Each structure stands twice: as C-alpha cells, then as structure tokens.
C-alpha cells in the first residue's frame, strides 16, 4: 500500500518481478462507472429522496410543508402500524421456519441417488420461478370455501371445511402455506449445495463406531451444513419480510386488516391515500427493521461458522 502507483510504462518490468503489481496496472474503473451512475440514479437517489420526504407533511395534490420528526412520532402511536408490524413478524417467522424444515429434509432426500431424481428436482424447483400473481390467482380459487379443491381434499380425510384466506384467524397461516409452497425449493437448493461440500470420511468412521442415521445427521451433517442453513435463513427472512405480491393479490391485507403487513400498509398509505410523507417515514422504519434483523442473523452466522469449523 505505498503511495506511488505503478506507471503504465513500468508494467513489463514489474510483470517480471511479480504478479502483485500487475493487478494494479490496468484501470478497471471505467468498467464500473456506468453501473455506478445507474445505481446512483435508481437506488441511491430514491433513498435520499425518501429520507427527505419522510420529514415533510406531504399528501399528493396538496402543498408540502416541513414536519421534522412528526411523521415518525405519528408512527409510534399508530396502532394500525404496530398491528401490521406484528403481522409482518408472524408471517416472517412462519415463512422462514416452515420452508427451512421442509427444504432441509427435501435436500437430504435429493442428495441421495434414486430413479428420476433429475426430473423430480426440476418439477420441485418450478414453483419458485412461477409468476407470483398467477400463483396467487390459482391458490385463491383453491382456497374457495365452497368450490375450492382444498376443502374437498380435506373432506376426503374427514377434516371439516376451512375458510382459509377468508377468515381473520386462518388468513396468515394460509398465506404462509403459499409462500412455503413457493420458496421451499430455494432452501432445498442452498442446503443441497452445502451437502455437496460435506466430506465422506467422517461418516465412514462414524459407521464403524456404530453411530445410527439420526446420530450421524445430528452430530456430523448438521454442524457441517450449519453455515448454509444460516444463509438460507437470512435470504428467507429478507424475502419474507418484503413479501408483497402474494399477499396483495390474494387478500390485499384483508379480511379487514387481518393480513396487512407493513409492506401492504405502506402501499395503501402511499398509493391509496397518497400520504407520501407518512409513507416515506414508514419505508424508512421498515428498512431499518429489515437491516436490523439481517444484521442479527449475520452475527449468528459468524457463530454458526465457528460451530461448522468445530464440527469438522
């Protein structure tokens, strides 16, 4: 890290001396600059603007005035906001837990060899690539209390008909079922990648020592794939917190406000009531919630990596 940078003419002599210097020689910044400009325009500018709007009283079509922290204070006592935060956290917790458990088991199965494995994996991956709105429409029909196929399937095994997304008590679990259906494959793929990196030898010696399948999973596989599980948890948490398409297309936050997450409330505030000052404050707080949760999980990941190393 000396102050002098190598001159263009010095490249050949330094090339002989060592490759370390060469890496500094070509100028790579021109490759990055166009992307920096775009990122600045469509990502950084909106953020700066959002921060500024959040300290203004501003409803679209009316005049704007400076408000300081008023919008944030309003949030603190807005019961609908706190309820939506609670819905978001419930939805997120369930939408992380269910795909994590199912996805890990699925990965253990798909890690083995069996007939038609490639084909089945291909079909398994399809839900996460399907267009969310299309998925939401068909699920809405399947959830229909009278004509839906799900209640019929339940009736076959003697379970009474449910109201699914049309009942305030079951709407969030029903939406989580759709989210789980769609995103379990991603967890499966990440864990599958982890399983592929697991060495064989410890299992052979465990076998000789008489460890059963559960013990092998609990004391060998699990610690070794822990870092991958944490990555899956982090990605799933971010995506579930941000979830919009499925919820909006299926319930729009209803019935009433029973499934209104922060994202939906934010949408309604900004684009139904056009209260963009308040909506912006909500966006800022929402972002802080996402970053804070991600940060906590990242810290946990640091720890899980240690466990991973000890496991080996």
């Amino acid at each position, binding site marked *: 890290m000396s102050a002098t940078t190598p001159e263009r003419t010095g490249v050949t002599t330094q090339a002989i001396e060592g490759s370390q210097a060469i890496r500094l020689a070509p100028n790579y910044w021109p490759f990055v600059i166009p992307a920096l400009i775009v990122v600045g325009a469509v990502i950084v500018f909106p953020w700066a603007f959002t921060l500024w709007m959040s300290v203004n009283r501003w409803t679209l079509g009316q005049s704007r005035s400076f408000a300081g922290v008023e919008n944030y204070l309003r949030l603190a006592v807005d019961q609908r906001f706190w309820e939506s935060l609670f819905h978001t956290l419930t939805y997120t917790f369930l939408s992380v837990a269910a795909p994590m458990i199912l996805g890990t088991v699925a990965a253990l199965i798909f890690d083995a060899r069996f007939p038609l494995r490639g084909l089945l994996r291909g079909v398994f991956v399809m839900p996460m690539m399907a*267009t969310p709105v299309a998925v939401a429409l068909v699920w809405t029909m399947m959830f229909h209390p009278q004509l839906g196929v799900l209640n019929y399937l339940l009736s076959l095994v003697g379970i009474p008909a449910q109201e699914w997304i049309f009942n305030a008590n079951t709407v969030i679990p029903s939406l989580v079922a759709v989210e789980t259906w769609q995103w379990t494959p991603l967890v499966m793929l990440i864990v599958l990648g982890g399983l592929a990196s697991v060495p064989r030898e410890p299992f052979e010696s465990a076998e000789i020592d008489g460890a059963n399948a559960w013990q092998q999973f609990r004391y060998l596989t699990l610690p070794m794939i822990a870092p991958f599980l944490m990555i899956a948890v982090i990605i799933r948490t971010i995506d579930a917190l941000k979830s919009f398409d499925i919820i909006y297309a299926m319930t729009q936050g209803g019935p009433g406000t029973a499934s209104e997450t922060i994202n939906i409330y934010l949408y309604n505030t900004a684009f139904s009531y056009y209260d963009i000052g308040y909506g912006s404050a909500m966006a800022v707080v929402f972002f802080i919630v996402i970053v804070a949760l991600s940060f906590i999980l990242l810290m946990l990941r640091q720890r899980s990596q240690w466990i991973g190393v000890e496991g080996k």
Partner: protein
Amino acid sequence: MSSRLLNQIGLFFAALVFVSPAILFFLWMISLSLKFEIDNGAYPPILIPEHLAWSNYAKVFEENNFLLYLWNSVLVTGTATLLALLIGVPAGYGIARLKAERSAVVIMIARMTPGLSYLIPLFLLFQWVGILGTLWPQIIIHLVVTVPIVVWVMIGYFETTPMELEEAANIDGASSWQVFRLVALPIAKPGIVVAFILSVIFSWNNFVFGVVLASRETRTLPVAVYNMLSYEQVSWGPLAAAALVVTLPVLVLTMFAQRQIVAGLTAGAVKGG
C-alpha cells in the same frame, strides 16, 4: 443388492411426497383453465372434464387487450434485461478485478430494500419529468431488479475465470478494454447466459412496479391478469387460462435452463450472506 433397490424406491417415493404439491398445483391450474364454468363449479371437483374448454384461451386473447399487454411485458423485460447486461457485465468484471468487495454491500442493500420504497420517489420523479404514460418508467424501475442480479452473477463468474490469459494479453500491450472484450468476455459467456435468464425471469414476474406505474395502455401481463380478477364478474376458466399464459414462458425457460438457474441462484445465495 435388493435392499439397495428397496432403498432407492423408498427415496423415490419420499421425493414424490415433497414434489406432489407442485405437481398437483400445476395439474389443477391446467384443469381449471380447460373447464367450462359448469365444471369449475361442480362439487365434488372434476379434474379431467368431458368437454375441454379451449375457448377459455381464445377468450383471454380476444378480450382484455391481452396481446398488447404481452407486447408490453416483452418490451419492459427485454429492454430492462439488455440494459442491465450492457451495464452490469462490465461492472461485474471491474468489481471482480478491483477486488472491491465492499461494492457487494451495495448490492446486498439493494436486495434488502423493499421495492415499494423505490416506488414513491421514482413515481414523483417520473410524474415531474412527464413520462408516466409511457413504458419508460417501468423499464427504468425494472433496472432496480435486473442490474443487481446481473452484477451479482457476473462478479461471481469473473472471480473464478483464470487471470493468466488476461495478464499475458496485458503484457502484449492490449488495453483494458481489449482484454475485457477479446479475452475475458468470451470465457464468461456461460455466466452471461445465467445472468440473462435470471434477469428475464425476475423482471417478467414483477408485479408491484407495474401495479403503481402502469396506465391502461402500459400494463404488463402480471398487472393485466390481476386486473381481470378485480373487474369482471369472476369466471374461473378464463382467469386460470390467463394465469397460465402469463407464467408459461417462465416455466418453459425454467425447464430448459434448469441447470443454469440452479447454478446462478445457489452461487448468488451462497455468496449472498
């Protein structure tokens, strides 16, 4: 030997249990789209009807301006993806070679940010510039989705391509641009394919940007399908047919490019933490 076979059959059925929700869903989607109203309202539900209602598909294209919305989707996804490749592939190369790992943080933050928080300021900006009635607002805002994907995939790809050739070309007096275009780019083709596919899928599927920014003439397919639901008296056959038409291109792409998609998603994911 036979216990191994038994084991394999057991695994097959275990996998089938996990895949069955996906199979059932798509079968049911096809079934709904091919049934007349009377069959869709039948109880107990019918999986395979006596008479197939192909007219549901005809109805989708005849009414609702569906072809226009299809074209809008192609334009928005196509332009946003091409622009992202144009900008993102060189950027991925530059970041990988500069070893500027911190710039990856920017992409992580972009991933964490809810799409809605871009929408409020950009909506105002587009209104102010006066391009709200055109497709440009959607194309520009889709860059929020496509550019990070392309940059992310390409950083990962260029990090793994060997430096020796580039160094040799460098010594021979090639400029950085020539090294990129003639040495690095050809090797990176598979990575570009992965970036292209993922960018197309996530842009195509996007709903939230269109629902705010699209007017009657500039709707993309996901928005058009959603609007069918809220407008007309809901008839399930055409609605399911429309849903299938929207998602079919993506599903076909997924089937043919499964390997690339899995590689791209897991590479991004594993580096993503």
